[in-house]
């Protein structure tokens, strides 16, 4: 548990906490959408110092956690192909597929590389003209510009040996699905600041209206999160539902129009499967036909595969906000970050891993 003085702005943290205490008269259930925010809320001990009336449930905003098993298996299948170098973000390396992870595949001799940026994979393709370089492109709207741009660069360099295996997810359709779900009783959302710095706020206005739910686009530092929570509670206590921007110093209303244009040039919306949740309409991005030459699905004739999740892992219920990691019987026993049963234990942005590290800290303290 954090003490106030350990925060970088202890007075501000204290001030927001007091304000939140003061305005909260009833219990409220709030969801932070983004895994980065979950990580920060848990790691900074905010969930422990918030008033009891406020229940934070954790959203599905961890791209690693929601990448479907079937797609991970496709990545593994490509990695073992003779002439393929499979690349992805470091976060993907330990995510379990049906039988193994990419890290295990690498140990068994598959050519797998982990990069900070898809641009490094484009360079690899330029340096290895006789190899097929496939970038396993996962992520939310924040990552989509980089993945899309890598394709435009590959085209500009005239590369024919670079392609993307995509599993892209979008926030607003998932928010809608959560609101439609009768078992999730969310009173307000903290929107994901980084996602909005690309996409802007536009898509959230209709959600606020249709579902009469407040959304506050929020950053991920403790003070941001507390301010965002306060803004939500103030609205809720007054019976209001508005779209607000706590993070306006970073997020312009229109996002970054150039980045949005690049995404729209390369990708189009698609029905997307989210691991643990299922298929949500319009909740993902696939490559446009014009870019079929850079689409690993087309290039390698990959058949879509839907593989049911392990029965033991309750990730689906956690990702929809029905349950919390500590409700899972395997948490910290059969399932740990080094030996994850499900994806939320793999990535540091996953809710299970965030709780695991917190508990380890508390016990070690």
């Amino acid at each position, binding site marked *: 548990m954090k003490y106030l003085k350990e925060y*970088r702005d202890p007075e501000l943290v204290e001030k927001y906490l007091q304000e939140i205490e003061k305005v909260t008269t009833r219990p409220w259930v709030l969801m932070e959408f*983004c*895994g*980065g925010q979950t990580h*920060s809320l848990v*790691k*900074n001990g905010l969930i422990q110092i918030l008033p009891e009336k406020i229940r934070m449930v954790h959203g599905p*905003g*961890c*791209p*690693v956690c929601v990448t479907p098993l079937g797609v991970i298996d496709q990545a593994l299948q490509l990695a073992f192909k003779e002439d393929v170098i499979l690349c992805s*973000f*470091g*976060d993907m*390396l330990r995510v379990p597929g049906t039988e193994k992870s990419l*890290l295990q595949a*690498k140990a068994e001799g598959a050519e*797998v*590389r*982990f*990069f*900070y*940026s*898809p*641009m*490094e994979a484009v360079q690899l393709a330029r340096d290895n003209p006789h190899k097929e370089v496939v970038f396993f492109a996962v*992520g*939310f709207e*924040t*990552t989509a*510009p*980089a*993945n899309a*741009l890598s394709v*435009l*660069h590959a085209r*500009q360099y005239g590369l024919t040996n670079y392609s993307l295996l995509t599993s892209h997810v979008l926030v607003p359709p998932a928010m809608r699905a959560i609101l439609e779900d009768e078992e999730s009783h969310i009173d307000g959302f903290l929107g*994901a600041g*980084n*996602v909005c*710095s*690309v996409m802007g706020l536009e898509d959230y206005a209709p959600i606020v209206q249709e579902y009469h739910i407040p959304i506050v686009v929020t*950053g*991920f*530092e403790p003070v941001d999160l507390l301010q965002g929570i306060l803004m939500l509670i103030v609205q809720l206590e007054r019976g209001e539902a508005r779209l607000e921007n706590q993070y306006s*110093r*970073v997020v*312009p209303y229109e996002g*970054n129009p*150039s*980045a949005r244009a*690049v995404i729209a040039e390369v990708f189009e919306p698609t029905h997307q499967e989210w691991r643990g949740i299922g298929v949500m309409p319009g909740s993902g991005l696939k490559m446009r036909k014009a870019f079929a030459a850079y689409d690993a699905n087309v290039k390698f004739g990959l058949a879509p595969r839907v593989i049911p999740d392990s029965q033991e892992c309750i990730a689906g219920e956690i990702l929809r906000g029905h349950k919390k990691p500590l409700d899972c019987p395997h948490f910290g026993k059969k399932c740990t970050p080094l030996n994850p049963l499900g994806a939320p234990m793999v*990535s*540091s*942005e996953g809710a299970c891993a965030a709780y695991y590290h917190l508990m380890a800290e508390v016990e070690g303290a």
Partner: protein
Amino acid sequence: MCLAIPGKIRSIEQTEGLIRRAKVVFGSIVKEAYLDMIPQAKEGDYVLVHAGVAINLVNEEEALKTFAHLQAYGGLEDLLPEEGIGG
């Protein structure tokens, strides 16, 4: 991997068509980043970089504050080379 990291543009190296490559300084780490989506960015500007691509401009004060936060709370692993994650 969702968090964008703020850094300062040290130099803009090359322009091939629309491709604008820059060296961006993140604390003691220097990385390549592409500025294609921020045509107005120039040397000395602060940018939010995600997966090697600058996604927006950000002011200096905000950049330094966010960077300090990421540093304190372990949000910079993405910048480390592959060996850092046991691959």
